[in-house]
């Protein structure tokens, strides 16, 4: 086909430092250089741009954890850290004073606490979806985003778990959520969805963490080996942790990363079991991620309250969770790829486009759910149900309802245009809208259903207090702060997985790899 020398030979020479990087033979015409999909089937755009070698991939990704953080990192970490501290302070105030400091009243006895809980736990779903479901579907593009999405999942679950923990009134009794023998000799009520929720969320948090940790083991070993190599090359030099204290950063890195890497030594026999275990985890996480938000939705659906008592809730909640979660992944990754050097080689426009398409799809799914709820409210002939939905759209909370509709249903429709779904700025703005819309979706479901239930004499309104607002804003700070720490200290991309999807990783790699094998 061409007169190029054999690629193995080129790679061998190049890796040994004997020849410069070859010009890519085909990649120039695959996509437009930014990795976006093109119309010719059979030509796949590269997943890693700029024809990187394995060594460059290692250097770039480890560099994020090894080099000095960018200039914006410290102020950002300080601000978000302060926000997280504020959250802690207001939680302390809440525990000391009682949940009367929230704007709850006799009619609206669940409001921002559970709205925030469902908002955060929903955001967590994108991480597991990317790491588990896309893994089973052999979507190789997931490798660029799965690590950060999994990290995001864990941080979102941490934020989510806070709210039910503090909304119980006597927070020091929260341990009674778990079936632990206690002085009254009674057990939790296993027939209640609220208890299912305890098990679903704690299982979800644990399994997501195990998945994340297992994926990171080889990459932590890479960081360990690099620190070790620098120590061997320069036993008496290297940056100190703090001035005048003779502890070197690389020594700490080698110890900490080394401990966490459990002695991983990249053996193929180990990889074989590792891949089997990873696939098994993906297989069991897939029903898990679908179950978690289904169970969250039963908190509402098994009650008799109009607006909650519907069978559409589980799939509707799951679609909404994936929708909101992908928006959050994009919110985090689009700024990160602008701010960090070379990140665009891994998170290409194609990745953003794929995720924008998922937003479009799941946005239409939630739009369908909204309209189906309305249809059933009318078709079901239950006057309370019908009133509830009329009240949502045209009652005192109409602004919340129409915010939700315009953010969640209308704004993603812009992604029908290829130009818009490949422009990072547009995707970012729509992701902001979707995140706002998904918070309002939970607010609408919870507050508008509660504030006018069966007895008109009890009708009321909910007004958030400063404690409500500060705890929620603080949780945004906590989430961002944890993500900044992740960007600073851990492997942001799965180094081994990215290498495995590069064309030269195939043991049968040869020049005409576009013509089939």
């Amino acid at each position, binding site marked *: 086909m061409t007169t190029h020398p054999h690629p193995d030979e080129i790679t061998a020479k190049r890796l040994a430092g004997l020849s410069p990087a070859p010009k890519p033979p085909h990649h120039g015409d695959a996509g437009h250089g930014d990795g976006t999909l093109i119309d010719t089937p059979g030509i796949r755009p590269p997943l890693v741009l700029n024809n990187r070698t394995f060594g460059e991939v290692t250097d770039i990704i480890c560099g994020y954890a090894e080099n000095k953080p960018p200039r914006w990192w410290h102020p950002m970490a300080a601000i978000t850290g302060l926000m997280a501290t504020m959250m802690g302070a207001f939680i302390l105030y809440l525990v000391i004073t009682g949940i009367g400091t929230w704007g709850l009243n006799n009619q609206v006895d669940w409001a921002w606490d559970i709205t925030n809980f469902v908002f955060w736990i929903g955001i967590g779903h994108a991480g597991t979806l990317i790491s588990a479901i896309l893994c089973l579907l052999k979507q190789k593009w997931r490798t660029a985003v799965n690590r950060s999405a999994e990290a995001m999942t864990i941080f979102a679950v941490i934020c989510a778990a806070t709210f039910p923990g503090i909304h119980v009134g006597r927070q020091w009794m929260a341990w009674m959520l778990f079936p632990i023998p206690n002085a009254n000799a009674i057990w939790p009520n296993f*027939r209640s969805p609220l208890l299912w929720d305890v098990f679903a969320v704690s299982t979800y948090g644990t399994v997501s963490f195990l998945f994340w940790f297992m994926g990171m083991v080889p990459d932590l070993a890479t960081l360990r080996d690099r620190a070790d190599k620098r120590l061997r090359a320069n036993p008496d030099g290297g940056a100190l942790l703090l001035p005048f204290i003779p502890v070197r950063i690389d020594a700490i890195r080698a110890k900490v990363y080394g401990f966490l890497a459990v*002695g991983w030594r990249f053996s193929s026999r180990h990889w074989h079991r590792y891949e089997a275990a990873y696939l098994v985890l993906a297989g069991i996480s897939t*029903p898990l991620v679908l179950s978690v938000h289904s169970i969250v939705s039963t908190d509402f659906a098994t009650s008799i309250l109009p607006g909650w008592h519907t069978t559409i809730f589980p799939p509707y909640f799951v679609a909404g969770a994936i929708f909101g979660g992908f928006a959050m992944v994009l919110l985090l990754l689009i700024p990160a790829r602008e701010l960090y050097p070379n990140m665009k080689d891994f998170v290409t426009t194609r990745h953003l486009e794929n995720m924008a398409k998922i937003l479009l799809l799941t946005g239409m799914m939630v739009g369908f759910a909204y309209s189906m709820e309305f249809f059933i409210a009318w078709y079901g002939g239950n006057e309370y149900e019908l009133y509830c939905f009329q009240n949502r759209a045209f009652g005192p909370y109409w602004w919340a309802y129409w915010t939700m509709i315009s953010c969640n249903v209308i704004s993603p429709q812009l992604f029908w245009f290829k130009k818009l779904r490949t422009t990072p700025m547009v995707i970012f703005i729509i992701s902001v809208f979707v995140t706002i819309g998904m918070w309002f979706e939970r607010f609408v479901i919870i507050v508008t259903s509660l504030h006018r239930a069966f007895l008109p004499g009890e009708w009321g309104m909910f007004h958030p207090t400063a404690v409500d607002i500060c705890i929620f804003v603080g949780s945004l700070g906590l989430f961002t702060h944890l993500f900044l720490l992740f960007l600073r200290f851990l492997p942001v991309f799965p180094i081994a997985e990215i290498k495995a999807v590069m064309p030269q990783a195939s043991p049968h790699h040869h020049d005409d790899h576009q013509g089939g094998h």
Partner: protein
Amino acid sequence: MPRATGKVYVTEKGEAIHGILAEFATPAALYHAAEHVRDAGYSKWDTFTPFPIHGMEDAMGVKRTKLPVAVALMAFAGAGLAFLMQHWMAGVDYPLMHQGKPYSSWQAFVPITFELGVLFAAFTSLIGMLALNGLPRWHHPLFKKERFLASSDDRFFVCIEACDGKFDPDATRALLEKAGATSIELVEE
């Protein structure tokens, strides 16, 4: 590990030998080398790659892992335990009437049964994978070799261990040379 033949190889300094380490530049080169070593009949050997190479277990003749079976068993054990726990706590130990439902209503126990099954399976797959791999093991003779650290970056290695019954310093080295290794060295225990 004692050798089948009972013979122990040591370096000139008298240190016991762990094995011979050979480096390769590309996945393809390593893949073919692995086929050579497999066909030569070695059993105590391994390859080291920065990422899992597709089809490597065939090139090495590694049998499929039993890990998924263990995971499935533990998943059912976890689910069974969860169901029994709920039945016993809600229906036997302290039955309390809630919401007019039967004390032990299996339908309501399904979500927690499922979740604990998943939890047990997840722990088994991580811990089982590490245990079968002999990890955590923070020290290994190979880590002493600076060259070996590149296995986490962009180099590919074969290590044939001295405890293999077929190990012979000269013949094994010759085999790896023939397979196209770019460098070969001894690894001390």
